[in-house]
């Protein structure tokens, strides 16, 4: 099963769109490097709608008081309680053992298409 979620021109780097594959809500994200990532749009915490969340760059620190933005490392923050996910892996940042189901997403012509199948490295493409 696959589903077109938008036109390629409607999803720019740093943006996301919502979609649906059968009964499953999905969120499709285009990262700052142009790669596409799709995952179930339901937070593992209390089911918050992740497609209504926010994309931020991941911030790290080497020492107390530092905020160091990491390039090409966006996180998706749940709109409800703020759980954060690595858009490339679907993992919860504070607990990588917990992971959102991810889907294959690719461009077909001028459309962004999500497929009810696990992502492949080749699928995370511009």
């Amino acid at each position, binding site marked *: 099963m696959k589903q077109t979620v938008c036109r390629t021109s409607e999803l720019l780097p740093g943006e996301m769109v919502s979609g649906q594959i059968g009964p499953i809500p999905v969120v499709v994200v285009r990262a700052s490097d142009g790669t596409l990532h799709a995952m179930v749009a339901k937070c593992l915490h209390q089911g918050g709608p992740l497609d209504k969340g926010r994309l931020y760059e*991941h911030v790290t620190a080497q020492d107390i008081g530092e905020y160091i933005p990491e390039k090409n490392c966006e996180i998706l923050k749940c709109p409800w309680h703020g759980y954060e996910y690595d858009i490339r892996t679907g993992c919860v940042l504070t607990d990588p053992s917990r992971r959102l189901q991810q889907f294959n997403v690719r461009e077909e012509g001028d459309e962004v298409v999500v497929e009810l199948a696990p992502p492949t490295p080749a699928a995370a493409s511009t």
Partner: protein
Amino acid sequence: MTEAAIRTPVVGPERKFHIIDTDVHERAELAALVPYLEPMWQKYITDFGWVPERNLPYAQFAAGGLDRADAKLPDGRPGGSDLGLVRKQLLDEYDIDYAVLTGWLDASALHPGWPEFKTALMTAYNDWQIEEWLDRDQRLLGSIHVNAHDPAGAVREIERLADHPKMVQAIMYIADKAYGDPFFLPIFEAAARNNLPVGFHHSENSPTAFGYHRYFVEWHTLVPQVFMSTIISLIFNGVLDKFPELKIIMIEGGFTWAPHLMSRADQQFKQLHSEVPWVKRMPSQIIRDQVRFATQPTEEMSLERFMSLLEWLESDELFCFSTDYPHWDFDSPYEALPLGLPVELKRKIFCENAQALYKKIPALVG
């Protein structure tokens, strides 16, 4: 090892483990510290009448006030003033192998003002502690009191005494300052560098979230608040991540609140950790790795409830037994914890957990 052998004061080689009491209060009369003060500071006590600031607006509504009624001296001195009575009522009575003195006067809980005098006073207090207590009974271990309001002076004091074989920790009483503030960082760096744990103890200047309630019973119920604030401050300001080898112990705050704190801190961290990216581990894991709890004051509870607390903590290495002698809410080594605790667990709580915390003790045990 039978149950009876642990719950009765067995002496000699029959007992297979030691009892380490992690909170015993020795008491000085202010005048007794004067000879230990540098001469230039002495007149402020002898002539100018300086006394420690005390915010607590109540008396303790216990039979003996602050102390067990039977721990006060016939001449009116407070409990913990006389080594002979400490031996009789605690060390000998319960066959305590080692007792960590946690003091009476601690500048960290006093007003930040006049830091030079208070730093000097802590030096005097530590020297008095060593000469009057540690040198007079091999079972007594000491705490390096520092003036946290003068971090440079606190570091000097830690460096001065870190190699003393019986000074097992640095200690700071808690008032209303969050010790995770970078202002205090040099103190933790010095403790970590010298492989000394840091003890935290509440004080008569520890407020609740509402300051000082109308009654002592309210304030005393809420004492754990300042311990929670201290732990959370040290975690989220990155102190415990910056010094992952540093161990800290919360003294005289009990422990039943620890599972709640760990659970709530973890939840907040999951949701808000991007605010504090220097924190690298889940708070509950930081606590399991680096925080210990002196057990007193215990709360009467069933064995089942006690074991469920441990299950929630996911560790049996966090609790270190303490009596808080000579205070009014003293915990008896034989009565305070629930009956029926497994022997191996008792061994950890009464001895091994403290032994792991205080690295100098194994050398003393030999």
